[in-house]
């Protein structure tokens, strides 16, 4: 259980825009570790570099400095922040997309996809094209797609950000259940302190841009968690206060 799955050291990333000759430091000397099977949330203000760090972990972006070490047999699966369902594929085809790329037989693919459609409550829309789905349903398609080929590491970039409170709660509970049964390693980005405390074993707090990790807090609640019941626990609110204090103390207004 103490084996390291992801190790990030001194990770720095900057963007350069030649037209305006401007350099943006998106992440600065970011350091953290994630153990195998652990659920880690990253919170931080908008634009602090959360997405950038995750994209580097997913191999979608190059890094400028530092090192990352991912110890897993397969590349990480990513759930993107923005709408990412492919509009020309049906829900079923979208979810099965990674499998079809690997040439998994149609029958096997169908069985696995059906399983996930059931799990994410999309079974009734299996053959619909995405333009017929609500925003929340599209997001569930993305989650199902990231789970379909059973990778060891799951990277989630505000997957429930655009959802209403109620749907979000349902999906959080679902995600926890899936995570508990599969033992995946999860890195989950969120704006929401509440969501981070609900889901994570540990919460990493990032400073405003250029983002770096300013705190690493353990979340003490027992598993399996009940996302509604845990809100009666005083420790939940103490931790909420602690994270808010950290975020506020580094807000750019204070420093200016």
């Amino acid at each position, binding site marked *: 259980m103490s084996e390291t799955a992801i190790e990030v050291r001194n990770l720095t990333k900057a963007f350069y825009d030649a037209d305006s000759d401007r350099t943006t430091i998106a992440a600065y000397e970011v350091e953290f570790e994630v153990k195998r099977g652990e659920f880690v949330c990253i919170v931080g203000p908008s634009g602090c570099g959360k997405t950038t760090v995750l*994209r580097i972990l*997913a*191999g*979608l972006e190059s890094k400028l400095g530092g090192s990352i070490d991912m110890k897993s047999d397969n*590349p990480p*699966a*990513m759930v*993107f922040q*923005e*709408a*990412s369902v*492919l*509009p*020309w594929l049906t829900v079923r085809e979208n979810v099965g*997309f*990674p499998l079809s*790329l*690997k040439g998994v037989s149609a029958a096997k693919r169908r069985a696995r996809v059906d399983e996930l459609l059931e799990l994410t409550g999309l079974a009734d829309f299996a053959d619909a*094209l*995405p*333009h017929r789905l609500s925003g929340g349903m599209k997001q569930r398609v993305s989650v199902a*797609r990231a789970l379909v*080929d059973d990778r060891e590491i799951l990277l989630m970039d505000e997957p429930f950000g655009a959802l209403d409170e109620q749907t979000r709660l349902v999906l959080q509970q679902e995600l926890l259940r899936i995570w508990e049964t599969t033992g995946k390693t999860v890195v989950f980005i969120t704006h929401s302190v509440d969501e981070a405390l609900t889901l994570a074993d540990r919460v990493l707090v990032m400073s405003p841009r250029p983002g770096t990790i300013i705190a690493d807090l353990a979340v003490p609640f027992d598993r399996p968690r009940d996302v509604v019941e845990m809100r009666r626990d005083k420790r939940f609110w103490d931790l909420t206060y602690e994270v808010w204090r950290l975020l506020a103390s580094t807000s750019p207004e204070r420093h200016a």
Partner: protein
Amino acid sequence: MSLVTAKLTEEQIRELKAPAQRERLFRTISYFSPILLLLLWEVASQLNVIDRRFFPPPSAIAGTFWQMITSFEIFDHIGATLRRVSVGYVMGAIPGILLGLVLGLSQPARRVLGPIFAALYPVPKIAILPLILLIFGVGDASKFVVIAIGVFFLLLYNTMGGVMQTPQIYLDVAKNAGATRLQTFFRIALPSALPNIFTGLRLAAGSSYIIIAAAEFLGARSGVGFFIWASWQTFAVSRMFVGIVVISALGYFTILALELIERKLVPWAKH
């Protein structure tokens, strides 16, 4: 926990279906709207508002047309033109689409090959027709080639534009899902560019008929273009109009067919 059984009233259902039904009606009307123009023409010509020597009434043209149908004369010309257009079209469209995908996805390819095509594109296809006749002779081969060239460029640029507009997120999804370059090519770039490709196909269909008419004026013994030219030489104005109507109708129905195919193949795009 009680589940409500939801039921719509008949009126609500009617209201729900109304826009789709209106859309169907307009689509049907749109197929027939050119007929209105013909009617106006007929009346104007019969009343001598326009010169009958140059613009015989559609009914007279229809009479000539009917003769040509019953004598099967027209079908040989239509057949020749359709054969040339369709072979040339396919010869131009397939390389145009494939190269458009390559140039759209690969910046190096765009850098190296882009200027060559940019320099060749503005050359009017009809201007090089004599050269093509010289190289390929007056047979069908020269017609295939000149149409293929025109179609090629339209599909190259439309496909390339479509691929370059592919949202980055779709490419990221493919990469994260483990797609190879070839898979990204056919399963992301191609479908994403499909609406633009169809725009190119429609434009190319229109320009194919312009090119074939000109090509058949110059060097052919058959085809609708040849037929128009031959009618001009004998001042058979009615026959000339039959030719013009036939070639317009061919273009019209080709584009209509392409639109139907597009609706089937690209159901996710707005039409």
